[in-house]
């Protein structure tokens, strides 16, 4: 079995042999700094940090999930500068992608843990069922809970990708028959980063890994343990339809004149005002579009309990009264409504899910 130990040579040396110059590193670093909302001057530090780093061992655990998060990260874009991250990491275990199976696959996980103790990163997608002893999801004869506990024991950091791992997601939704819980309830003694979304934006995942590699520390996180660079603003804050919201110009159904004119989708259920994510700026499919640009409201998939927020097509305000009377077309009404909506949504969110504890850093 090949060794999973991080090689003694640096990434700079390894990639240089393949004709990847430091200029290419710098280009990647400029891109990374930009998506991480770091100043351009940070690009040099990122490039130097990556060139000096060893190839990072990564163990990817998939629990109660749909593989959408893996689909997202492996389709980051066409083979290009964005995909250099896959040269920077050694994906030592991922039971969907690896060619090995059964005992050989589990042996690979154990070997990577042993050879990189204290240095490897564990990426988890999917929630963990804990009801009835965790019997509702098992891999290689172990419950997900057992595998998680065993694997994170000697990890450097844990990244919970996707809303299932970060907040419980769909398995956690009412009535939560398997007792699914987010990773933050089970991993409390390791640095933990939540990258929510259903699925998360690929650049949020690769950018976060690049940050860890470059600086050896966690990026700045919000109160839900998410990198502020990607989750610092709401979809609504950066939505290109925002001017219509401010003017009170709303689509009231998906086939009315407002929808055809590209007006704000708030009244047809858009959760953009209470959803923190970078869809409106980074977009999807190599920056092609995002749901609102394609004519559908945001589902709020990167927020805790999004599945139970009262309906994808109900305006945020209707659950707590007849807010439509406020939507009269005035700019002032638009702004006031936004504030009220944010307050109501925050109150509702607190009722639905206990916020994850803030990430800890060793």
């Amino acid at each position: 079995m090949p060794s999973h130990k991080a090689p003694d040579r640096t990434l700079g040396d390894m990639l240089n042999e393949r004709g990847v110059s430091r200029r290419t590193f710098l280009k990647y670093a400029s891109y990374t700094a930009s998506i991480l909302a770091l100043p351009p001057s940070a690009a040099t530090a990122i490039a130097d940090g990556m060139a000096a780093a060893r190839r990072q061992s990564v163990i990817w655990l998939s629990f109660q999930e749909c593989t959408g998060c893996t689909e997202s990260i492996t389709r980051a874009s066409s083979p290009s500068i964005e995909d250099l991250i896959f040269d920077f990491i050694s994906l030592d275990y991922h039971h969907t992608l690896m060619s090995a199976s059964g005992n050989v696959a589990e042996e690979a996980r154990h070997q990577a843990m042993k050879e990189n103790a204290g240095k490897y990163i564990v990426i988890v997608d999917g929630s963990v069922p804990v009801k009835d002893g965790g019997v509702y999801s098992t891999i290689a004869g172990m419950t997900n809970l057992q595998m998680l506990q065993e694997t994170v024991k000697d990890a450097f950091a844990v990244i919970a990708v996707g809303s299932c791992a970060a907040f419980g997601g769909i398995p956690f939704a009412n009535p939560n028959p398997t007792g699914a819980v987010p990773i933050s309830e089970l991993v409390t003694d390791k640095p933990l980063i939540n990258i929510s979304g259903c699925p998360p934006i690929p650049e949020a995942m690769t950018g976060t890994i690049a940050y860890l590699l470059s600086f050896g520390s966690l990026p700045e996180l919000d109160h839900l343990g998410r990198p502020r660079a990607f989750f610092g603003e709401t979809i609504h804050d950066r939505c290109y339809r925002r001017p219509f919201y401010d003017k009170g110009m709303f689509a009231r159904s998906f086939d009315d004149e407002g929808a055809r004119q590209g007006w704000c989708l708030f009244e047809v259920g858009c959760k953009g005002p209470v959803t923190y994510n970078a869809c409106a700026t980074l977009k999807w499919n190599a920056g092609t579009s995002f749901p609102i640009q394609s004519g559908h409201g945001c589902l709020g998939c990167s927020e805790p309990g999004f599945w139970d927020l009262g309906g994808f097509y109900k305006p945020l305000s209707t659950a707590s009264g007849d807010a439509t009377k406020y939507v009269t077309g005035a700019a002032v009404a638009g702004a006031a409504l936004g504030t009220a909506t944010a307050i109501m949504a925050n109150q509702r969110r607190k009722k639905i899910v206990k916020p994850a504890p803030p990430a800890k850093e060793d």
Partner: protein
Amino acid sequence: MAESVLTEISHLLNNLSENGESASIDLRSLPMTRTDRLHLEELLGRGEVHVDLDLAGASEAWETRYPGVWWIRHRGKNGKITSEEIAVTPIPEILVTHPEDVRAAAMRLKNDLALFEEISNQPAGNEHNDVEILDAQP
């Protein structure tokens, strides 16, 4: 929006002139529309230098009509812009050869020279094989 960025560039250029400090502005971090960026590009114009780079996708850097103000645009292999910045500096870092690349190049050239010498010392008639050996080098 373009005028606001131009004002910022003016401050940075003064600082470069008076204190020798370089700085950059990440254009993608600003809420600029495509029209805003085109307007800014038009205002800054083109200067004496334009460089094309082939780095996992095309990149280009050009000095604007204000010496010391560079526009750097990186694209992925699909042609989409991945990052874009204004660098206020005598020479953008992306154009400067890194010492590690110089070291690696020196070693590679030394190896190539040794190979050339080995080939030239071979008896006549083996030229076709020689070409294949050379093509196999990275």
